[in-house]
């Protein structure tokens, strides 16, 4: 198909082209909802079966890092939205600036995630033979709590591993989406530096923005579901 300026050959008008792209992205996001949905279902069933193990597992996570990461991601959504706004209002240099800010914030998120993952490794919280719950039981009080938990759920070790497996699967999949998103934003930055985006043509910024916000939304649910179970126990 031939391309005339910004208009691809299969379309009649720019408006039709943008309409198609936006609708297409939203449909793709719906498939992503159900993609993550399968995991949320797995999570729901397991959490309702093993509430104690899930609370115990959740309390091994670092809530500070989790909360900071949530804020970082929300801020990156703001910069992304501002990048779209800059394109819509023809502020070409601002587009690049906001996109770079978004990319940096995305990388900060992934960096913090990496720190968390390596903590899990140091704390023997990787599912498998070396899995050890006793890390978070400082002092006799903690040991007593652990004993109580084992009394309520004799399979605590196995079931907490289920929680941690889910933690890795869900955050891992989310991180994978972040990496893809960062790649897309990087491509946008290159395009934007060529001055490609303007009031009349900003579809790529808009739809990659949609994707970025969606990944943010997934985290908005992952954060309370993974980090905030029965925090009062500690």
């Amino acid at each position, binding site marked *: *198909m031939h391309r005339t300026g910004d208009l691809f*050959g*299969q*379309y*009649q008008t720019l408006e*039709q082209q943008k*309409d*198609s792209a936006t*609708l*297409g992205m939203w*449909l*793709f996001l*719906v*498939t*992503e909802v*159900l*993609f*993550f*949905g*399968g*995991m949320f*279902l*797995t999570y729901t*069933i*397991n959490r309702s*079966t*093993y509430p104690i*193990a899930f609370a115990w597992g959740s309390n091994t996570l670092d809530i500070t890092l989790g909360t900071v990461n949530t804020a970082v991601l929300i801020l990156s959504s703001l910069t992304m939205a501002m990048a779209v706004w800059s394109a819509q209002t023809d502020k070409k240099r601002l587009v690049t600036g906001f996109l770079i800010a978004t990319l940096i914030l995305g990388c900060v998120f992934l960096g913090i995630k990496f720190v968390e993952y390596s903590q899990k490794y140091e704390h023997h919280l990787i*599912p*498998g033979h070396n899995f050890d719950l006793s890390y978070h039981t400082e002092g006799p009080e903690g040991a007593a709590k652990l004993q109580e938990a084992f009394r309520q759920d004799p*399979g605590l070790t*196995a*079931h907490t*591993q*289920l929680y941690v*497996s*889910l933690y*890795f*699967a869900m955050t891992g999949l989310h991180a994978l989406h972040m990496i893809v998103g960062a790649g897309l934003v990087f491509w946008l930055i290159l395009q934007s530096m060529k001055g490609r985006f303007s009031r009349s043509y900003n579809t790529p910024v808009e739809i990659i923005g949609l994707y970025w916000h969606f990944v943010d939304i997934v985290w908005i649910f992952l954060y309370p579901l993974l980090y905030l179970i029965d925090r009062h126990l500690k």
Partner: protein
Amino acid sequence: MPRVHYLNATYGIRSWLLTTDHKRIALLYLAVVTFFFTLGGIFAAMIRIHLLTPEGALVSPETYNKLFTMHGVAMVFFFLIPSIPAILGNFLIPMMIGAKDVAFPKLNLMSWYIYVLGGCFVLYSFFTGGLDTGWTFYTPLSSIYSNSAVTPAVIGIFINGFSSILTGVNFVVTIHTMRAPGMTWFRLPLFVWSHYATSLIFILGTPVIAITLLLCGVERIFHFGFFNPAMGGDPILFQHLFWFYSHPAVYIMILPAMGVISEIIPTFARRPIFGYSFIAASSIGIAVIGFLVWAHHMFVTGQATYSALAFSFLSYLVAIPSAVKVFNWTATLYKGSISYDTPMLYALGFIGLFTIGGLTGLFLACLGLDIHIHDTYFVIAHFHYIMVGGAIMGYLGGLHFWWPKITGRLYPEFLARIAAIVLFLGFNLTFFPQFILGYLGMPRRYHNYPPEFQVLNVLSSAGASILAIGYLLPMIYFVWSMRYGQVAGPNPWPATGLEWRTASPPPTENFEHTPVVDWETYDFVNRPDLGLATKPAPHLAPSHEDD
């Protein structure tokens, strides 16, 4: 034939492998889909030969298990699901709505590459250790106990899922935004409606199978315990996730075939389809209600009684839209002018076989009966009536119907009619005995069986050999006709759709000028361009009647 068309507009292997033309992509799909069909067919033939004797005539138990698994995987994920949507849908939807191409042509090509990549992974699994989990991949057999090459297979199907998803997104957007002027929603051919419904299932269902098989693969690699009871996981959860997609997937396979039938019948009865809006709505109805019935595959897993009652009830509801279609097709024959061309033979065969397949589905949705016939040959017979008798009959009917449009040439009519009849007879001989076998209690996936089941198994295998001839014939004469077939002209039948208003084969951009639609679909009366009578034949309508 036109001098320049999409087949000869450019030359060379690159012009095919890098094409963004939806028609060429459809042919790329045709090649790979045919390969998987042949592969699955060979597995099926070996299964039927093996089951000739009670103790198993051909292969070891391990090999037999691999054969039926690979038959299922090849046929379901790599033949039935992409066949009609990716070949006929890709080729026709843009032309039927008067567009130059789909909304995202590059994505369309990417879908094909994703499909091929997924196929490579699955072939790798087939030929390095095979796959013996059953196409349903039930855990913990698939995630822990199987020693076969499960991991590449689930990765392959996971990848292939994205091909379906992207095709679905492409179709929905295309149908929404790319319609030609005058092509209103209620002038859309029913083929487009059924593909719209199919695409909804692609979009809403396929991601769930992707994540499910991903979890299954992750469980195999990292020993996570989501579905492993030894670690507190639940194998039943896998079945919920699996069937949330795989039951609607049945409708992915049958809905497009229904769309094909809805095109063929009015064309060869030369009258408007009966109850257009009901057929269109029933497609959407099937897509939606089809998502609410999945746990009828799990009645005997120890599912709660209340839940079983709910799912059984909903399963009965989904029968209604399918029945509506069958009734309307039948009514379309009334006072038509019916020709006996090959596509029509396939369409009528479809009505018969799909009716049996659909009705036997009611037996399986029936809670009390399902206790007895679940996981027996009754199930095998039922879904082969839907998949082979329905989907493949529709696929072959559609391929014959649009072959002149795709290649510009006609297939040999006489041979094609013979093949259609051979297929119909061979099919019934193969699968009808399996209903009885199932009620007698022969469980599925058995590499040997008690001797009292032998007579019916031999009958079934005999039918399979006839069926094989029925499949080989079209493969041969289609290839033959590409070179030697009679030149078809733009509208050989003639049919009313927009795709018949351009040359055969069509130019790369489908139409010389963007068409403007000012006629109703399936209307033969106000279409002088078709070269037919403008009034119904006198023996059909002595006094003018119209409602």
